């Protein structure tokens, strides 16, 4: 089962990368990076499942990673939408 989910995690990462290269829109890029991150998390959780006991250290790292991913997404979204608004109003924002 570990191997299967390792491959799915790798597949998610590659899908996100492919979309990042091809679709330049900022919202799609942020969603693609989110999916790449989910792929990485899946690899970590699959590795935590080796052996008979589940590895709590990897689970804790992924919880940390999830929270950091959401804060990075919030910042990236605000940056991109702020940039969009500035370029829409050439006379300058407030």
């Amino acid at each position, binding site marked *: 089962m570990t191997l299967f*989910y*390792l491959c799915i995690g790798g597949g998610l990462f590659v899908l996100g990368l492919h979309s990042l290269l091809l679709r330049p829109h900022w*919202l799609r890029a942020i969603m693609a990076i989110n999916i790449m991150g989910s792929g990485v998390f899946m690899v970590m959780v699959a590795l*935590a499942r080796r052996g008979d006991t589940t590895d709590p250290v990897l689970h*804790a790292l992924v919880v940390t990673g*999830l*929270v950091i991913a959401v804060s990075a997404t*919030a910042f990236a979204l605000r940056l*991109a939408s*702020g940039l969009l608004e500035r370029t829409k109003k050439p006379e300058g924002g407030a």
Partner: protein
Amino acid sequence: MVADGLFDGALGVLLLTLATAVLHARQLYTSVVLLIAFGLLLALTWARLGAPDLALAEAAIGAGLTGALLLSALARCGEAPPGPSRAPPLRVLPATLLALLVGIVLLRALWPLAEGPVLLPALALGQLPAAGVDHPVTAVLLNYRAWDTLLELVVLMLALLGVRQLHSAKQVIPPPWPLLLAWTRMLAPLALLVGGYVLWRGAFAPGGAFQAGALLAAGAVILRLNHLLPPVRWDNGLVRLLVVLGLGVFLAVGVVGLVGPGLGFGPVGTAWLAYPPALAGPLILTIEAAATLSIATTLTLLVVGEPEELRA
């Protein structure tokens, strides 16, 4: 055995298909909604892989709050015009080749890891009686790797500061519909109750500060979107206090652990963020409670914070 394999196979195929649908849908709105569904499916996958804390966190943070963030960004900026958003067709083949190459490299790197030596769980579980809590993931988050969790709170605060630096158009929240108001009034106390329960439960079963904080943030966001909560403004003293409370309590515990023996405090630890085994349980609960409030306030500010006061 066969049923397990069938379930895993179906889950894997669903995940990959949903990811493809998210990334290649024609409309942005479709992509965002499918990403929320993908987050929920991911939560199911974490539950399948034996990670219930992760499932809770993913459902609350990954599906709920990220979905709210993306939808509000989409509402602020509108749908993209069709046509120019697609890459030129000449780029498709090199991009696909590159993605395939990266995939092959990843697969070759990950394959031998599936049977690697596994030493950490024994070490982590062996020290559990002295850690102060009974749940291994909470012990790792707040005892063995407490430094990482402290820095994570710093990262959350940095993201909040970054978001506040940017002037952005005011969020226009339309007046709520009556059914939504009634439903929110029913959900808000439930969010508070479940959040508090998940926080308390983190000491001995899956749960913890991040999941509880995300639930409380979700409750606060839905209250704000229905005008049942006043605008959450940074210049409100209580808001500022809540945001720095988690980090402050964490740092205080760390510093007291460091200088305690020198100042004559009896039963404290001997190094930065080292808890004495007798006090570890109560200390962890205190830190978690403060961190929950902090995380809830920060996440709420990230999603529905008002930059109003930045415009003079």
